């Protein structure tokens, strides 16, 4: 099997609630990068990376040029058994792991489709039927954060993450924690 084409989309994702974190970092709309890898056998694989802005050494604008840099290695290569091809990418463009992650995901998608198995079977098998979600609460007014936690709880959420520090006021952070708790 050979990779014949890479298609990339940049999609703006707007969250239900604007996300405020410490140090003045804010997320309302974030760009996600979606990748499709096509092959000469008709199988395609999908990958995605959605870096939270100003958060880690990863950003949406850096993904496209990095994948473009790696395209010459990918096109014509065998996508089945992702680690061999990922090692070639590591030699071709040092680090930039966030830009490589959608490729890795898409290669695993193709590999699993080729095997006719869900991906978890290739990764060691299924141990759990259902995985709980957690809910992340933006750093706003303490009462508003408590309301968000209650709403999410009513929808079945049992794990929560509360963002603190956006207004640099530790006493309000204590209040946030107490009320959300």
């Amino acid at each position, binding site marked *: 099997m050979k990779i014949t084409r890479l298609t990339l989309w940049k999609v703006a994702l707007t969250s239900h609630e604007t996300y405020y974190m410490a140090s003045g970092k804010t997320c309302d709309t974030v760009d996600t990068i979606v990748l499709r890898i096509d092959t000469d056998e008709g199988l395609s694989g999908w990958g995605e990376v959605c870096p939270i802005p100003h958060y880690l050494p990863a950003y949406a604008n*850096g993904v496209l040029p990095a994948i473009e840099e790696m395209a010459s290695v990918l096109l014509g290569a065998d996508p089945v058994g992702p680690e061999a091809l990922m090692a070639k990418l590591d030699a*071709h463009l040092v680090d930039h792991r966030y830009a490589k992650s959608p490729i890795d995901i898409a290669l695993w998608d193709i590999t699993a489709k080729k095997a006719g198995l869900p991906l978890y079977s290739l990764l060691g098998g299924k141990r759990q039927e259902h995985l709980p979600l957690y809910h992340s609460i933006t750093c706003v007014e303490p009462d508003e954060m408590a309301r968000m936690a209650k709403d999410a709880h009513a929808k079945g959420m049992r794990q929560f993450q509360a963002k603190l520090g956006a207004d640099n006021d530790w006493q309000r952070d204590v209040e946030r924690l107490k009320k959300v708790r």
Partner: protein
Amino acid sequence: MKITRISVYHVDLPLEHPYWLSGGRLKFEVLDATIVKIETDAGVTGWGEGTPWGHTYVPAHGPGIRAGIETMAPFVMGLDPRKVLEVERAMDLSLPGHLYAKSPIDMACWDIAGKVAGMPIADLMGAGSRTPKPIASSVGAKTIEETRDVMERYRSRGYVAHSVKIGGNVERDIARVQDVESIRKPGEIVLYDVNRGWTRQQALRVMSACENLNVMFEQPGETLDDIAAIRNKHASPVSLDECLVTLQDATRAARDGLAELFGIKLNRVGGLTKAARIRDVALSHGIDMFVMATGGSVLADAEALHLAATIPDDNCFAVWACQDMLTVDIAGGRGPRNIDGHLHLPEEPGLGVEPDESTLGDPVAVYGAEA
């Protein structure tokens, strides 16, 4: 004073000779340079450059510099470029990591600060030594005979500092080190640069065999952990290069005694502002330095020269002139040039060299006020 516009240029800098990196990594013939022009409301303009040594050497590539600047530009627009720490913090807040994308902006800000102060950058940073800095050669030969030929060619042009590339074959490496030492002249500085090309056993075998020669090795393993693991099993001074990126790398190496030399490459560590801190860690721990561009034109060489000039002469072994490996010159012969194997600090304010805009083509991106 405020930054009003950032123009980004993409220039291909062809190498005179194609370059093969060690370990079967890709051959390349062209360096991808990003030249940055920062304009201000005071009419002062600064220039910066970021030119990685290809994309297979360290985590850096030309398109990544340009994408990083696109992301950071709105955050540095309107700042006072002379307040380099404020610019640095704005860049670090808007884009964690990616130090290589930040260095051209930092460099252009220092150029502006120097021009406004009427001083060369090195003087503005506190100490600009006028002692000409030896340029290190880059001896990439494989055999003993070729190594001798290449070194002789450099010597005839005045070079007294040499970076001899080794790695990959224990017996050949030992033989080449022994031969170079047998022809080394008094006063010549030779650094044996492994470029991460040894595993731990290879490193120990070569370093042990060369122990009586009293030589220095650069980057004798892939990571700081590799270098730390063999630290107490050999007697050779070690220089850190590729894995010296952050201030934390420098402090770890200084505290744990992992290196006696630092190879500070400006683009890799994020520019002059961040490099100056690494310099101070080195000076306060008895660590000597080589200071270089990762690659690029006379602009990048000049940036490195300014930092080198702020280091006491005895603690700075050599700089580099990547410009001599290129077939194009974007600055029409201006700026610090190779004179008998040395670079001389420019006396003009700021960086001391500007490119000919006609050689840069149209900018690939412009942020801020329209022309």
